[in-house]
């Protein structure tokens, strides 16, 4: 299943890629694949912006705008004028939405 087209904020710089393969190892949707000893994007629309690739690329070749992605959190963020947040305090308490 794929979500909306052309919205993912994934950025990839081939020049910085050293072929370490971490992005392929961590991506849950096969967005990256190794080709000619470098990573290549297969389909940007498969990206769910989880951020695992950007966090694990030590060479700065990948960037993505990842954050809490659930509707309730984004609405909460809009209402409180802050970044999207679930409102639950991370102790597993208080989360009124089911996304925690």
């Amino acid at each position, binding site marked *: *299943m*794929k*979500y*909306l*087209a052309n*919205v*993912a*904020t994934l950025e990839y710089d081939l020049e910085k890629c050293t072929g370490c393969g*971490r992005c*392929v*190892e*961590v*991506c*849950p*949707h*096969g967005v990256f694949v190794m080709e000619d000893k470098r990573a290549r994007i297969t389909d940007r629309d*498969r*990206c*769910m*912006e*989880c*951020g*695992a690739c950007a*966090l*694990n690329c*030590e060479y700065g070749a990948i960037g993505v*705008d*990842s*954050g*809490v*992605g*659930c*509707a*309730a*959190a*984004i*609405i909460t963020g*809009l209402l409180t004028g802050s970044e*999207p947040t679930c409102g639950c305090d*991370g*102790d*597993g*308490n208080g989360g*009124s*939405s*089911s*996304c*925690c």
Partner: protein
Amino acid sequence: MENAAALREVLGDITIIKPAGTGTKFPLPLTGEARGARKLQTALAMTSITEKDAPPKILGAVSADISRTERWEHFKCRVGGFRNSYIVEPGLYAFGEPDANAAVLVSANYKLSFDYLRQELRGLNAWILVLDTKGINVWCAAGKGTFGTEELIARIGASKLYSVVKHRRLMLPQLGAVGMNAAEIRRRTGFRVSFGPVRAADVPAYISAGYKKTPGMATVRFGMRDRLVLTPMELNPAMKKYYPWFAAGVLLLFGLQREGILFADAWNGALPFLLLGLVAVISGALLTPVLLPYIPFRSFALKGLLAGFITVFLATLLPVISDSQDDTLLRAATFLFFPAASSYIALQFTGSTTYTGMSGVKRELRIGVPLYILAAALSLLLLLAYKLDEWGVL
């Protein structure tokens, strides 16, 4: 010497004996009982003894067996708030009979996650390092940062993992990568992180293949069963957060007469709409998630809207509801409000899927929220018009 006083307080009735040869500032207590062992660990955590003196902390031995009670607990996790305090104590556990060469698997302290992992490891011998994710599963905790680099590094130190295993290799669940910076973990602990398969069931195959996984092992699935198990936690909040307010509002509206609030009028008038409210919740929180790939459009708001129109239309054919639809104002309000409600509820499901992303949800909300507000406002106006018409004012 405040540490020694605190130590004494924690140890209570355990006699403090200084073992020969340790030469540390604070005496190490001896113990042979489980309760004493717990106190010992707390005491050790509080003392400033040198690392080579400290024994590794192993919290217990576990197996692949899941009891009937645990299966019931797992079910309760899926349907309600039981999950909020279903935890295991963070730290190092032995699965089977691991030695210094055995693999180290890392998990979250949500007991469901821990149980899902260990039930797949039958026949293996491994260490399981449980991180303190505040009782949250791996993927969500990784997104929040609790299944994260700092916690892993702290837990490695606290459990003295480096004195338990000779190798310096960790296997992390792939979905934990969202919070784990493998390069930094290597720099600061010397341990090399391998991100194993997505599903625990593939761990034995991954190990057999020499820590290699197939693309299939690295891909998250979202099949019907996966979607179905999430629906209780969509239905539950919808019924607890929204429905009572909706029901109260509708009952009040139909009960409000010139003479005051009449209960008979309230119930008779409101019943069709209370039922339609349930239909909207089921449409958005159960049907849309379960039938997700079969409903047209990629947008969850549109999927929910379409499912809403169809189910609401079918519901209006039922005798208990059809009479209320004879009034044009009520019929218009029905087809405006309930599909929109179903759409909004379906949009909430984006928080539970494995493939929607923040940017897409933001776009949906940017378009959807004004429309939802508009639909709600218009429905309210139509209802008020109905009311005024009923009172002969209009």
